[in-house]
Protein backbone atom coordinates (compact mmCIF):
# COMPACT_ATOMS: atom_id res chain seq x y z
CA UNK A 1 0.00 0.00 0.00
CA UNK A 2 1.21 3.47 -0.82
CA UNK A 3 0.46 5.94 1.97
CA UNK A 4 -2.21 8.45 1.01
CA UNK A 5 0.00 11.50 1.18
CA UNK A 6 2.56 9.94 -1.10
CA UNK A 7 -0.15 9.01 -3.51
CA UNK A 8 -1.33 12.62 -3.60
CA UNK A 9 2.23 13.72 -4.31
CA UNK A 10 2.57 11.23 -7.10
CA UNK A 11 -0.69 12.26 -8.64
CA UNK A 12 0.28 15.90 -8.42
CA UNK A 13 3.69 15.17 -9.90
CA UNK A 14 2.19 13.30 -12.80
CA UNK A 15 -0.22 16.08 -13.55
CA UNK A 16 2.54 18.68 -13.40
CA UNK A 17 4.64 16.64 -15.78
CA UNK A 18 1.62 16.44 -17.99
CA UNK A 19 1.54 20.22 -18.17
CA UNK A 20 5.10 20.45 -19.43
CA UNK A 21 4.43 17.79 -21.98
CA UNK A 22 2.17 19.78 -24.27
CA UNK A 23 4.31 19.74 -27.39
CA UNK A 24 4.47 15.98 -27.54
CA UNK A 25 0.71 15.41 -27.60
CA UNK A 26 0.24 12.19 -29.47
CA UNK A 27 -2.50 12.31 -32.04
CA UNK A 28 -4.66 9.29 -31.63
CA UNK A 29 -4.91 7.80 -35.10
CA UNK A 30 -8.39 6.44 -34.50
CA UNK A 31 -9.93 9.75 -33.33
CA UNK A 32 -12.95 10.46 -35.46
CA UNK A 33 -14.57 13.10 -33.32
CA UNK A 34 -13.95 16.80 -33.43
CA UNK A 35 -15.21 20.10 -32.10
CA UNK A 36 -16.83 22.60 -34.39
CA UNK A 37 -17.33 26.29 -33.81
CA UNK A 38 -19.81 28.02 -36.06
CA UNK A 39 -19.44 31.79 -36.08
CA UNK A 40 -22.20 33.96 -37.44
CA UNK A 41 -20.46 36.98 -38.92
CA UNK A 42 -22.10 39.94 -40.51
CA UNK A 43 -21.07 42.02 -43.48
CA UNK A 44 -22.34 44.86 -45.56
CA UNK A 45 -21.04 43.69 -48.92
CA UNK A 46 -17.46 42.85 -48.04
CA UNK A 47 -17.22 45.12 -45.00
CA UNK A 48 -17.47 43.32 -41.67
CA UNK A 49 -20.06 44.74 -39.25
CA UNK A 50 -20.07 44.41 -35.47
CA UNK A 51 -22.07 46.13 -32.77
CA UNK A 52 -19.34 48.79 -32.75
CA UNK A 53 -20.88 49.97 -36.03
CA UNK A 54 -24.30 50.30 -34.47
CA UNK A 55 -25.88 53.76 -34.60
CA UNK A 56 -22.81 55.44 -36.07
CA UNK A 57 -21.67 53.72 -39.27
CA UNK A 58 -23.87 54.64 -42.20
CA UNK A 59 -24.60 52.28 -45.06
CA UNK A 60 -26.00 53.04 -48.48
CA UNK A 61 -28.50 50.43 -49.57
CA UNK A 62 -29.42 49.32 -53.09
CA UNK A 63 -32.12 51.97 -53.25
CA UNK A 64 -29.51 54.62 -52.36
CA UNK A 65 -31.03 55.30 -48.97
CA UNK A 66 -28.56 56.02 -46.20
CA UNK A 67 -29.21 53.96 -43.11
CA UNK A 68 -27.79 53.03 -39.72
CA UNK A 69 -28.30 49.85 -37.70
CA UNK A 70 -29.12 49.74 -34.00
CA UNK A 71 -30.28 46.16 -33.55
CA UNK A 72 -29.77 42.91 -35.43
CA UNK A 73 -31.18 39.82 -33.81
CA UNK A 74 -32.46 36.71 -35.56
CA UNK A 75 -33.42 33.13 -34.92
CA UNK A 76 -32.03 30.14 -36.76
CA UNK A 77 -33.09 26.56 -36.12
CA UNK A 78 -32.13 22.99 -37.00
CA UNK A 79 -28.55 23.80 -37.94
CA UNK A 80 -27.50 20.59 -39.69
CA UNK A 81 -24.40 19.18 -41.42
CA UNK A 82 -24.96 16.94 -44.45
CA UNK A 83 -22.76 14.31 -46.07
CA UNK A 84 -22.82 13.46 -49.75
CA UNK A 85 -24.16 9.99 -48.91
CA UNK A 86 -27.30 11.49 -47.38
CA UNK A 87 -26.28 11.16 -43.73
CA UNK A 88 -26.86 14.23 -41.64
CA UNK A 89 -26.09 15.53 -38.19
CA UNK A 90 -28.13 18.18 -36.39
CA UNK A 91 -25.91 20.53 -34.40
CA UNK A 92 -28.62 22.26 -32.41
CA UNK A 93 -32.32 22.96 -32.17
CA UNK A 94 -32.40 26.73 -32.29
CA UNK A 95 -30.21 29.71 -31.65
CA UNK A 96 -30.93 33.40 -31.22
CA UNK A 97 -28.15 35.35 -32.91
CA UNK A 98 -27.72 38.78 -31.37
CA UNK A 99 -25.08 41.31 -32.30
CA UNK A 100 -25.65 43.59 -29.31
CA UNK A 101 -22.48 44.57 -27.47
CA UNK A 102 -22.24 42.96 -24.05
CA UNK A 103 -24.76 40.19 -24.54
CA UNK A 104 -23.69 39.34 -28.06
CA UNK A 105 -24.52 35.84 -29.14
CA UNK A 106 -22.91 34.93 -32.41
CA UNK A 107 -21.16 31.62 -31.97
CA UNK A 108 -22.14 28.00 -31.48
CA UNK A 109 -19.65 25.32 -30.39
CA UNK A 110 -20.49 21.64 -30.62
CA UNK A 111 -18.16 18.81 -29.64
CA UNK A 112 -18.55 15.18 -30.67
CA UNK A 113 -18.88 15.93 -34.35
CA UNK A 114 -17.43 13.18 -36.57
CA UNK A 115 -14.55 14.47 -38.67
CA UNK A 116 -14.85 14.14 -42.42
CA UNK A 117 -16.18 15.77 -45.48
CA UNK A 118 -19.54 17.53 -45.23
CA UNK A 119 -21.12 18.49 -48.50
CA UNK A 120 -23.49 21.15 -47.18
CA UNK A 121 -24.78 23.01 -44.13
CA UNK A 122 -28.45 23.78 -43.71
CA UNK A 123 -30.65 25.63 -41.27
CA UNK A 124 -34.05 27.24 -41.10
CA UNK A 125 -34.31 30.99 -40.87
CA UNK A 126 -36.83 31.34 -38.05
CA UNK A 127 -38.84 28.30 -37.02
CA UNK A 128 -40.60 25.89 -39.35
CA UNK A 129 -44.30 25.35 -38.76
CA UNK A 130 -43.79 22.37 -36.43
CA UNK A 131 -41.31 24.20 -34.22
CA UNK A 132 -42.98 27.61 -34.17
CA UNK A 133 -45.12 26.80 -31.15
CA UNK A 134 -46.70 29.70 -29.28
CA UNK A 135 -44.92 30.26 -25.96
CA UNK A 136 -43.08 26.91 -26.03
CA UNK A 137 -39.52 28.07 -25.39
CA UNK A 138 -38.87 29.62 -21.98
CA UNK A 139 -35.55 31.19 -22.97
CA UNK A 140 -37.11 32.88 -25.99
CA UNK A 141 -40.07 34.06 -23.91
CA UNK A 142 -37.63 35.48 -21.38
CA UNK A 143 -35.96 37.34 -24.24
CA UNK A 144 -39.37 38.79 -25.24
CA UNK A 145 -38.94 37.15 -28.64
CA UNK A 146 -42.62 36.24 -29.12
CA UNK A 147 -44.64 37.13 -32.20
CA UNK A 148 -48.14 38.42 -31.38
CA UNK A 149 -50.92 35.85 -31.48
CA UNK A 150 -53.00 38.19 -33.65
CA UNK A 151 -50.28 37.78 -36.29
CA UNK A 152 -50.17 34.01 -36.02
CA UNK A 153 -48.17 33.74 -32.79
CA UNK A 154 -44.99 31.78 -32.21
CA UNK A 155 -41.78 33.75 -32.40
CA UNK A 156 -40.06 36.56 -34.25
CA UNK A 157 -37.61 35.36 -36.88
CA UNK A 158 -35.75 38.65 -36.95
CA UNK A 159 -35.65 42.09 -35.35
CA UNK A 160 -33.52 44.39 -37.43
CA UNK A 161 -33.78 48.07 -36.58
CA UNK A 162 -32.21 51.41 -37.23
CA UNK A 163 -32.82 54.72 -38.90
CA UNK A 164 -32.69 55.96 -42.46
CA UNK A 165 -32.59 59.33 -44.19
CA UNK A 166 -30.45 62.36 -43.54
CA UNK A 167 -29.31 63.30 -40.05
CA UNK A 168 -31.84 65.40 -38.23
CA UNK A 169 -34.78 64.18 -40.25
CA UNK A 170 -34.24 60.42 -39.98
CA UNK A 171 -37.05 57.97 -39.79
CA UNK A 172 -36.94 54.73 -37.90
CA UNK A 173 -37.26 51.34 -39.54
CA UNK A 174 -38.13 48.09 -37.80
CA UNK A 175 -37.56 45.19 -40.18
CA UNK A 176 -39.28 42.56 -38.06
CA UNK A 177 -40.01 39.21 -39.64
CA UNK A 178 -42.26 36.33 -38.59
CA UNK A 179 -45.41 34.53 -39.62
CA UNK A 180 -47.30 36.52 -42.27
CA UNK A 181 -50.90 37.50 -41.72
CA UNK A 182 -52.93 37.32 -44.91
CA UNK A 183 -56.10 38.62 -43.28
CA UNK A 184 -57.74 38.34 -39.86
CA UNK A 185 -57.03 34.82 -38.54
CA UNK A 186 -55.52 33.68 -41.85
CA UNK A 187 -51.77 33.18 -41.66
CA UNK A 188 -48.99 32.02 -43.93
CA UNK A 189 -45.73 30.31 -42.94
CA UNK A 190 -42.86 32.64 -43.61
CA UNK A 191 -39.68 30.76 -42.63
CA UNK A 192 -37.20 29.74 -45.29
CA UNK A 193 -34.57 27.03 -45.46
CA UNK A 194 -30.97 27.94 -46.10
CA UNK A 195 -28.44 25.57 -47.61
CA UNK A 196 -24.84 26.65 -48.04
CA UNK A 197 -21.59 24.97 -49.03
CA UNK A 198 -20.05 22.30 -46.86
CA UNK A 199 -16.47 21.94 -45.64
CA UNK A 200 -13.98 19.43 -44.33
CA UNK A 201 -14.34 18.87 -40.63
CA UNK A 202 -11.17 18.21 -38.63
CA UNK A 203 -10.56 17.80 -34.92
CA UNK A 204 -10.84 21.55 -34.33
CA UNK A 205 -12.74 23.31 -37.04
CA UNK A 206 -14.16 26.76 -37.10
CA UNK A 207 -16.53 27.78 -39.81
CA UNK A 208 -17.99 31.12 -40.57
CA UNK A 209 -21.56 31.59 -41.70
CA UNK A 210 -21.75 34.99 -43.32
CA UNK A 211 -24.78 37.20 -43.51
CA UNK A 212 -24.52 39.93 -46.10
CA UNK A 213 -26.91 42.44 -44.56
CA UNK A 214 -27.12 44.50 -47.74
CA UNK A 215 -28.83 41.55 -49.45
CA UNK A 216 -31.93 42.11 -47.32
CA UNK A 217 -32.42 45.32 -49.31
CA UNK A 218 -31.33 44.08 -52.70
CA UNK A 219 -32.21 40.81 -54.19
CA UNK A 220 -34.63 40.31 -55.94
CA UNK A 221 -36.57 43.29 -54.53
CA UNK A 222 -34.87 46.66 -54.24
CA UNK A 223 -36.13 47.58 -50.80
CA UNK A 224 -37.56 51.08 -50.53
CA UNK A 225 -37.54 52.16 -46.89
CA UNK A 226 -39.88 55.03 -47.66
CA UNK A 227 -42.46 52.39 -48.60
CA UNK A 228 -41.55 49.68 -46.08
CA UNK A 229 -40.07 50.94 -42.81
CA UNK A 230 -42.67 50.42 -40.09
CA UNK A 231 -45.11 48.89 -39.22
CA UNK A 232 -43.95 45.82 -41.14
CA UNK A 233 -45.04 42.93 -38.91
CA UNK A 234 -48.63 43.48 -39.94
CA UNK A 235 -47.74 44.10 -43.58
CA UNK A 236 -48.25 40.92 -45.61
CA UNK A 237 -46.43 42.18 -48.71
CA UNK A 238 -43.43 43.29 -46.67
CA UNK A 239 -43.25 39.89 -44.94
CA UNK A 240 -43.17 38.09 -48.29
CA UNK A 241 -40.52 40.41 -49.68
CA UNK A 242 -38.36 39.80 -46.61
CA UNK A 243 -38.69 36.09 -47.23
CA UNK A 244 -37.60 36.46 -50.87
CA UNK A 245 -34.73 38.79 -50.12
CA UNK A 246 -33.56 36.66 -47.20
CA UNK A 247 -32.82 33.65 -49.38
CA UNK A 248 -29.53 35.08 -50.64
CA UNK A 249 -28.13 36.66 -47.48
CA UNK A 250 -26.20 33.65 -46.14
CA UNK A 251 -23.06 31.99 -47.44
CA UNK A 252 -20.19 29.91 -46.11
CA UNK A 253 -17.22 32.05 -45.13
CA UNK A 254 -13.75 31.15 -43.91
CA UNK A 255 -13.18 27.61 -42.67
CA UNK A 256 -10.11 26.67 -40.65
Amino acid at each position, binding site marked *: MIPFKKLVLIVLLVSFLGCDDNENTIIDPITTIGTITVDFNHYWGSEKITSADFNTTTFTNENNDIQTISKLKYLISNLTLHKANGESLKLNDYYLVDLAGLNSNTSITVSDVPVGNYSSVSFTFGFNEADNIEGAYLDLNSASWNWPA*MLGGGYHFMQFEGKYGTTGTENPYAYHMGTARVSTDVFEQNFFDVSINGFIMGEETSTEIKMDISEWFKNPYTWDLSVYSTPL*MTNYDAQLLMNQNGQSVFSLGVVN
Partner: protein
Amino acid sequence: MLKRIKIISLIFIFSSCSETGIETYTAYSPTPSPLNIPQIFASTILPPIQSIDNPQTEEGVQLGRKLFFDTILSVDDSQSCASCHSPENAFTDTDRFSEGIDGILGNRNSMPLFNMAWNYDNKFFWDGRSFGLEKQALEPVIDPIEMHNTWSNAVLSLQNDLEYPQLFFDAFGTLVIDSLLVTKAISQFERTLISSNSRFDKHLLGEITLTASELNGFNVFMDETKGDCFHCHGSQNNPLWTDNNFHNNGLDATFLDLGLGIITGDPNDNGKFKSPSLRNLKFTAPFMHDGRFASLDDVINHYSEGLINSLTIDPLMKSVNDGGVQLSATDKIDLKAFLLSLSDDEFINNPDFQAPN
Protein backbone atom coordinates in the same frame (compact mmCIF):
# COMPACT_ATOMS: atom_id res chain seq x y z
CA MET B 1 8.69 22.17 -9.14
CA LEU B 2 9.23 20.24 -5.94
CA LYS B 3 8.76 23.45 -4.01
CA ARG B 4 5.39 23.96 -5.62
CA ILE B 5 4.33 20.48 -4.64
CA LYS B 6 5.41 21.16 -1.10
CA ILE B 7 3.39 24.32 -1.01
CA ILE B 8 0.40 22.54 -2.40
CA SER B 9 0.61 19.72 0.10
CA LEU B 10 0.97 22.32 2.82
CA ILE B 11 -2.22 23.94 1.62
CA PHE B 12 -3.86 20.53 1.77
CA ILE B 13 -2.79 20.10 5.35
CA PHE B 14 -3.89 23.60 6.30
CA SER B 15 -7.24 23.27 4.68
CA SER B 16 -7.91 20.00 6.47
CA CYS B 17 -6.95 21.66 9.76
CA SER B 18 -9.24 24.63 9.24
CA GLU B 19 -12.09 22.34 8.29
CA THR B 20 -12.03 20.66 11.69
CA GLY B 21 -11.72 24.14 13.20
CA ILE B 22 -14.99 25.24 11.62
CA GLU B 23 -16.82 22.12 12.68
CA THR B 24 -16.31 22.83 16.35
CA TYR B 25 -17.88 26.29 15.90
CA THR B 26 -20.80 25.20 13.78
CA ALA B 27 -23.85 25.32 15.94
CA TYR B 28 -26.26 27.12 13.71
CA SER B 29 -28.55 25.55 11.16
CA PRO B 30 -30.54 27.98 9.07
CA THR B 31 -33.68 26.65 7.44
CA PRO B 32 -33.44 26.64 3.65
CA SER B 33 -36.29 28.60 2.12
CA PRO B 34 -36.12 28.43 -1.66
CA LEU B 35 -38.14 30.97 -3.61
CA ASN B 36 -41.73 30.06 -4.29
CA ILE B 37 -41.92 30.16 -8.06
CA PRO B 38 -45.44 31.03 -9.20
CA GLN B 39 -46.94 28.75 -11.80
CA ILE B 40 -47.48 31.66 -14.14
CA PHE B 41 -43.70 32.20 -14.24
CA ALA B 42 -42.67 28.53 -14.18
CA SER B 43 -44.72 27.85 -17.29
CA THR B 44 -43.46 30.81 -19.31
CA ILE B 45 -40.01 32.08 -18.37
CA LEU B 46 -36.63 30.86 -17.15
CA PRO B 47 -36.08 30.18 -13.44
CA PRO B 48 -34.99 33.10 -11.25
CA ILE B 49 -31.35 33.97 -10.73
CA GLN B 50 -30.09 32.17 -7.62
CA SER B 51 -27.25 33.76 -5.74
CA ILE B 52 -24.79 30.92 -5.21
CA ASP B 53 -23.09 32.49 -2.21
CA ASN B 54 -26.30 33.78 -0.65
CA PRO B 55 -28.85 30.97 -0.47
CA GLN B 56 -32.34 31.89 0.73
CA THR B 57 -33.03 30.88 4.34
CA GLU B 58 -35.93 31.65 6.64
CA GLU B 59 -33.61 33.34 9.11
CA GLY B 60 -31.93 35.37 6.35
CA VAL B 61 -35.24 36.55 4.89
CA GLN B 62 -36.62 37.54 8.32
CA LEU B 63 -33.44 39.41 9.17
CA GLY B 64 -33.53 41.14 5.79
CA ARG B 65 -37.13 42.16 6.36
CA LYS B 66 -36.29 43.66 9.74
CA LEU B 67 -33.34 45.56 8.27
CA PHE B 68 -35.40 46.79 5.33
CA PHE B 69 -37.93 48.43 7.63
CA ASP B 70 -35.44 49.62 10.25
CA THR B 71 -34.30 53.24 10.44
CA ILE B 72 -31.14 52.05 12.21
CA LEU B 73 -29.34 51.99 8.85
CA SER B 74 -29.63 55.77 8.39
CA VAL B 75 -27.24 58.13 10.11
CA ASP B 76 -29.87 59.86 12.28
CA ASP B 77 -32.25 56.95 12.72
CA SER B 78 -34.89 58.69 10.61
CA GLN B 79 -35.14 56.69 7.41
CA SER B 80 -35.37 53.07 6.35
CA CYS B 81 -35.39 51.48 2.93
CA ALA B 82 -39.17 51.40 3.27
CA SER B 83 -39.31 55.20 3.56
CA CYS B 84 -38.83 55.29 -0.22
CA HIS B 85 -39.93 51.72 -0.92
CA SER B 86 -43.24 51.28 0.84
CA PRO B 87 -45.29 48.06 0.56
CA GLU B 88 -48.54 49.93 -0.14
CA ASN B 89 -46.90 51.46 -3.21
CA ALA B 90 -45.50 48.18 -4.48
CA PHE B 91 -42.29 49.23 -2.73
CA THR B 92 -41.84 52.63 -4.32
CA ASP B 93 -43.07 55.99 -2.98
CA THR B 94 -45.51 58.64 -4.16
CA ASP B 95 -42.99 61.46 -4.45
CA ARG B 96 -41.59 62.59 -7.74
CA PHE B 97 -38.13 62.70 -6.18
CA SER B 98 -37.61 61.05 -2.84
CA GLU B 99 -36.28 63.08 0.03
CA GLY B 100 -33.11 61.87 1.72
CA ILE B 101 -32.50 62.22 5.46
CA ASP B 102 -31.11 65.73 5.01
CA GLY B 103 -34.20 66.83 3.11
CA ILE B 104 -32.26 66.88 -0.16
CA LEU B 105 -34.17 65.63 -3.19
CA GLY B 106 -32.59 63.16 -5.57
CA ASN B 107 -33.07 63.56 -9.32
CA ARG B 108 -34.71 60.20 -9.92
CA ASN B 109 -38.03 58.64 -9.06
CA SER B 110 -37.84 55.75 -6.61
CA MET B 111 -38.32 52.33 -8.19
CA PRO B 112 -40.89 49.70 -7.25
CA LEU B 113 -39.37 46.46 -5.98
CA PHE B 114 -40.72 43.07 -7.08
CA ASN B 115 -39.77 40.06 -9.19
CA MET B 116 -36.17 41.21 -9.03
CA ALA B 117 -34.80 37.65 -9.01
CA TRP B 118 -36.08 37.44 -12.61
CA ASN B 119 -34.00 40.41 -13.72
CA TYR B 120 -31.79 38.03 -15.70
CA ASP B 121 -29.13 40.60 -16.56
CA ASN B 122 -28.94 41.47 -12.86
CA LYS B 123 -28.58 45.19 -13.61
CA PHE B 124 -30.26 47.44 -11.06
CA PHE B 125 -31.20 51.13 -10.92
CA TRP B 126 -32.69 53.16 -13.77
CA ASP B 127 -29.29 53.18 -15.44
CA GLY B 128 -28.34 49.60 -14.58
CA ARG B 129 -25.23 50.68 -12.69
CA SER B 130 -25.37 48.04 -9.92
CA PHE B 131 -24.72 44.43 -10.81
CA GLY B 132 -26.68 42.19 -8.45
CA LEU B 133 -29.00 43.00 -5.58
CA GLU B 134 -26.29 42.58 -2.95
CA LYS B 135 -24.18 45.28 -4.63
CA GLN B 136 -27.22 47.50 -5.07
CA ALA B 137 -28.01 47.42 -1.34
CA LEU B 138 -24.58 48.86 -0.52
CA GLU B 139 -25.52 52.19 -2.10
CA PRO B 140 -28.56 53.70 -0.36
CA VAL B 141 -27.05 53.43 3.12
CA ILE B 142 -24.11 55.65 2.21
CA ASP B 143 -25.75 57.76 -0.49
CA PRO B 144 -25.46 61.36 0.77
CA ILE B 145 -28.94 62.19 -0.53
CA GLU B 146 -30.48 59.04 0.89
CA MET B 147 -29.55 57.51 4.26
CA HIS B 148 -26.24 59.40 4.38
CA ASN B 149 -24.57 56.98 6.75
CA THR B 150 -21.19 55.26 6.65
CA TRP B 151 -21.06 51.51 6.60
CA SER B 152 -18.77 51.40 9.62
CA ASN B 153 -21.27 53.44 11.58
CA ALA B 154 -24.26 51.41 10.39
CA VAL B 155 -22.49 48.17 11.28
CA LEU B 156 -21.52 49.56 14.69
CA SER B 157 -25.15 50.45 15.46
CA LEU B 158 -26.25 46.95 14.52
CA GLN B 159 -23.44 45.35 16.49
CA ASN B 160 -24.38 47.35 19.59
CA ASP B 161 -28.04 46.51 19.23
CA LEU B 162 -29.59 44.02 21.66
CA GLU B 163 -31.20 41.80 19.05
CA TYR B 164 -29.23 42.02 15.80
CA PRO B 165 -26.05 40.06 16.66
CA GLN B 166 -28.09 36.97 17.53
CA LEU B 167 -30.21 37.37 14.39
CA PHE B 168 -27.06 37.57 12.27
CA PHE B 169 -25.80 34.46 13.99
CA ASP B 170 -29.03 32.64 13.24
CA ALA B 171 -28.89 33.66 9.61
CA PHE B 172 -25.18 33.48 8.85
CA GLY B 173 -23.49 31.69 11.76
CA THR B 174 -21.49 34.64 12.99
CA LEU B 175 -21.97 37.26 15.65
CA VAL B 176 -19.65 39.60 13.78
CA ILE B 177 -21.75 41.84 11.56
CA ASP B 178 -20.40 43.39 8.38
CA SER B 179 -21.85 45.28 5.42
CA LEU B 180 -21.73 42.18 3.23
CA LEU B 181 -24.00 40.23 5.56
CA VAL B 182 -26.38 43.18 5.85
CA THR B 183 -26.75 43.36 2.07
CA LYS B 184 -27.09 39.58 1.83
CA ALA B 185 -29.98 39.56 4.29
CA ILE B 186 -31.73 42.50 2.62
CA SER B 187 -31.33 40.88 -0.78
CA GLN B 188 -32.85 37.64 0.47
CA PHE B 189 -35.90 39.56 1.63
CA GLU B 190 -36.08 41.48 -1.64
CA ARG B 191 -36.00 38.25 -3.66
CA THR B 192 -39.13 37.05 -1.84
CA LEU B 193 -41.04 40.10 -3.13
CA ILE B 194 -42.83 38.23 -5.88
CA SER B 195 -45.88 39.66 -7.60
CA SER B 196 -47.93 37.22 -9.67
CA ASN B 197 -51.58 37.59 -8.64
CA SER B 198 -52.97 40.37 -10.77
CA ARG B 199 -56.32 40.16 -12.50
CA PHE B 200 -54.47 39.46 -15.73
CA ASP B 201 -52.53 36.59 -14.12
CA LYS B 202 -55.80 35.11 -12.92
CA HIS B 203 -57.23 35.52 -16.39
CA LEU B 204 -54.24 33.61 -17.81
CA LEU B 205 -54.79 30.88 -15.25
CA GLY B 206 -58.41 30.69 -16.31
CA GLU B 207 -59.68 31.80 -12.91
CA ILE B 208 -61.46 34.98 -13.96
CA THR B 209 -62.67 36.66 -17.13
CA LEU B 210 -61.47 40.11 -18.03
CA THR B 211 -63.82 42.86 -19.13
CA ALA B 212 -64.23 43.61 -22.83
CA SER B 213 -62.42 46.88 -22.26
CA GLU B 214 -59.42 45.17 -20.60
CA LEU B 215 -59.24 42.61 -23.39
CA ASN B 216 -59.36 45.26 -26.08
CA GLY B 217 -56.69 47.16 -24.15
CA PHE B 218 -54.46 44.08 -24.32
CA ASN B 219 -54.96 44.01 -28.08
CA VAL B 220 -54.00 47.68 -28.31
CA PHE B 221 -50.87 46.81 -26.30
CA MET B 222 -50.00 43.92 -28.65
CA ASP B 223 -50.97 45.51 -31.97
CA GLU B 224 -48.04 46.88 -33.95
CA THR B 225 -50.33 49.38 -35.66
CA LYS B 226 -51.73 50.62 -32.32
CA GLY B 227 -49.86 50.68 -28.99
CA ASP B 228 -47.03 48.31 -29.97
CA CYS B 229 -45.90 48.17 -26.34
CA PHE B 230 -44.98 44.47 -26.15
CA HIS B 231 -41.53 44.74 -27.70
CA CYS B 232 -40.25 46.35 -24.49
CA HIS B 233 -42.86 45.57 -21.85
CA GLY B 234 -43.44 41.81 -22.05
CA SER B 235 -46.60 39.92 -22.93
CA GLN B 236 -48.64 36.96 -21.73
CA ASN B 237 -45.54 34.89 -22.56
CA ASN B 238 -43.25 37.13 -20.53
CA PRO B 239 -45.38 38.05 -17.51
CA LEU B 240 -42.61 40.12 -15.96
CA TRP B 241 -44.04 42.86 -18.19
CA THR B 242 -40.58 44.26 -18.85
CA ASP B 243 -37.60 43.31 -20.97
CA ASN B 244 -35.30 44.71 -18.24
CA ASN B 245 -33.46 46.42 -21.07
CA PHE B 246 -32.51 50.03 -21.70
CA HIS B 247 -34.27 52.31 -24.18
CA ASN B 248 -34.96 55.92 -24.96
CA ASN B 249 -38.75 56.12 -25.19
CA GLY B 250 -38.91 59.65 -26.56
CA LEU B 251 -39.21 61.84 -23.47
CA ASP B 252 -36.74 64.61 -24.34
CA ALA B 253 -34.79 66.22 -27.16
CA THR B 254 -31.71 66.67 -24.97
CA PHE B 255 -30.89 64.95 -21.72
CA LEU B 256 -30.37 66.43 -18.27
CA ASP B 257 -29.83 62.88 -17.02
CA LEU B 258 -27.82 60.73 -19.43
CA GLY B 259 -29.06 57.46 -17.89
CA LEU B 260 -27.27 54.40 -19.28
CA GLY B 261 -24.86 56.76 -21.07
CA ILE B 262 -23.32 57.81 -17.73
CA ILE B 263 -22.46 54.20 -17.04
CA THR B 264 -21.21 53.05 -20.44
CA GLY B 265 -19.71 56.37 -21.54
CA ASP B 266 -21.20 55.70 -24.96
CA PRO B 267 -23.11 58.71 -26.32
CA ASN B 268 -25.37 56.26 -28.16
CA ASP B 269 -26.66 55.22 -24.74
CA ASN B 270 -27.57 58.73 -23.62
CA GLY B 271 -31.16 59.11 -22.50
CA LYS B 272 -31.71 55.36 -22.15
CA PHE B 273 -33.33 54.00 -19.00
CA LYS B 274 -34.45 50.58 -17.87
CA SER B 275 -37.95 49.65 -19.02
CA PRO B 276 -39.99 49.43 -15.82
CA SER B 277 -42.36 46.53 -15.30
CA LEU B 278 -45.98 47.45 -15.98
CA ARG B 279 -47.15 45.43 -13.01
CA ASN B 280 -48.63 47.39 -10.13
CA LEU B 281 -48.98 50.74 -11.92
CA LYS B 282 -52.09 51.30 -9.79
CA PHE B 283 -49.76 51.88 -6.82
CA THR B 284 -46.58 53.32 -8.33
CA ALA B 285 -47.31 56.83 -9.67
CA PRO B 286 -45.63 59.09 -10.56
CA PHE B 287 -44.03 57.54 -13.63
CA MET B 288 -40.75 57.52 -15.58
CA HIS B 289 -37.20 57.82 -14.23
CA ASP B 290 -37.83 61.40 -13.19
CA GLY B 291 -41.44 60.93 -12.15
CA ARG B 292 -42.57 63.51 -14.70
CA PHE B 293 -45.97 61.93 -15.33
CA ALA B 294 -48.42 62.07 -12.45
CA SER B 295 -50.95 59.70 -14.00
CA LEU B 296 -51.28 56.80 -16.38
CA ASP B 297 -53.27 59.05 -18.70
CA ASP B 298 -50.22 61.26 -18.98
CA VAL B 299 -48.12 58.21 -19.89
CA ILE B 300 -50.57 57.01 -22.51
CA ASN B 301 -50.84 60.50 -24.00
CA HIS B 302 -47.07 60.59 -24.17
CA TYR B 303 -46.91 57.44 -26.32
CA SER B 304 -49.95 58.51 -28.32
CA GLU B 305 -49.03 62.06 -29.23
CA GLY B 306 -46.22 63.36 -27.03
CA LEU B 307 -43.09 61.64 -28.39
CA ILE B 308 -40.04 63.83 -28.81
CA ASN B 309 -37.29 62.99 -31.26
CA SER B 310 -33.65 62.75 -30.24
CA LEU B 311 -30.47 61.13 -31.50
CA THR B 312 -30.88 57.99 -29.43
CA ILE B 313 -34.64 57.50 -29.56
CA ASP B 314 -35.53 53.84 -30.00
CA PRO B 315 -36.62 52.94 -33.56
CA LEU B 316 -39.59 51.21 -31.95
CA MET B 317 -40.88 54.68 -31.10
CA LYS B 318 -41.74 54.39 -34.77
CA SER B 319 -44.34 57.14 -35.06
CA VAL B 320 -42.13 59.81 -33.55
CA ASN B 321 -42.46 62.00 -36.64
CA ASP B 322 -46.23 61.98 -36.10
CA GLY B 323 -45.79 62.61 -32.39
CA GLY B 324 -46.82 59.07 -31.46
CA VAL B 325 -49.05 56.12 -32.19
CA GLN B 326 -52.25 58.23 -32.25
CA LEU B 327 -54.61 56.09 -30.23
CA SER B 328 -58.34 56.70 -30.37
CA ALA B 329 -60.10 57.86 -27.20
CA THR B 330 -61.61 54.40 -26.71
CA ASP B 331 -58.31 52.65 -27.24
CA LYS B 332 -56.73 54.90 -24.62
CA ILE B 333 -59.40 54.04 -22.09
CA ASP B 334 -59.08 50.35 -22.84
CA LEU B 335 -55.29 50.40 -22.77
CA LYS B 336 -55.45 51.98 -19.34
CA ALA B 337 -57.95 49.37 -18.15
CA PHE B 338 -55.64 46.62 -19.39
CA LEU B 339 -52.58 48.19 -17.74
CA LEU B 340 -54.42 48.39 -14.44
CA SER B 341 -55.38 44.70 -14.73
CA LEU B 342 -51.66 43.98 -14.21
CA SER B 343 -51.86 45.37 -10.68
CA ASP B 344 -51.69 42.94 -7.81
CA ASP B 345 -53.54 43.87 -4.62
CA GLU B 346 -52.54 40.62 -2.95
CA PHE B 347 -48.92 41.58 -3.43
CA ILE B 348 -49.15 44.90 -1.62
CA ASN B 349 -51.25 43.37 1.14
CA ASN B 350 -49.13 40.26 1.65
CA PRO B 351 -48.52 40.07 5.43
CA ASP B 352 -45.04 38.63 4.86
CA PHE B 353 -44.02 41.86 3.18
CA GLN B 354 -45.16 44.34 5.84
CA ALA B 355 -43.02 45.90 8.54
CA PRO B 356 -42.26 43.26 11.19
CA ASN B 357 -44.19 43.82 14.46
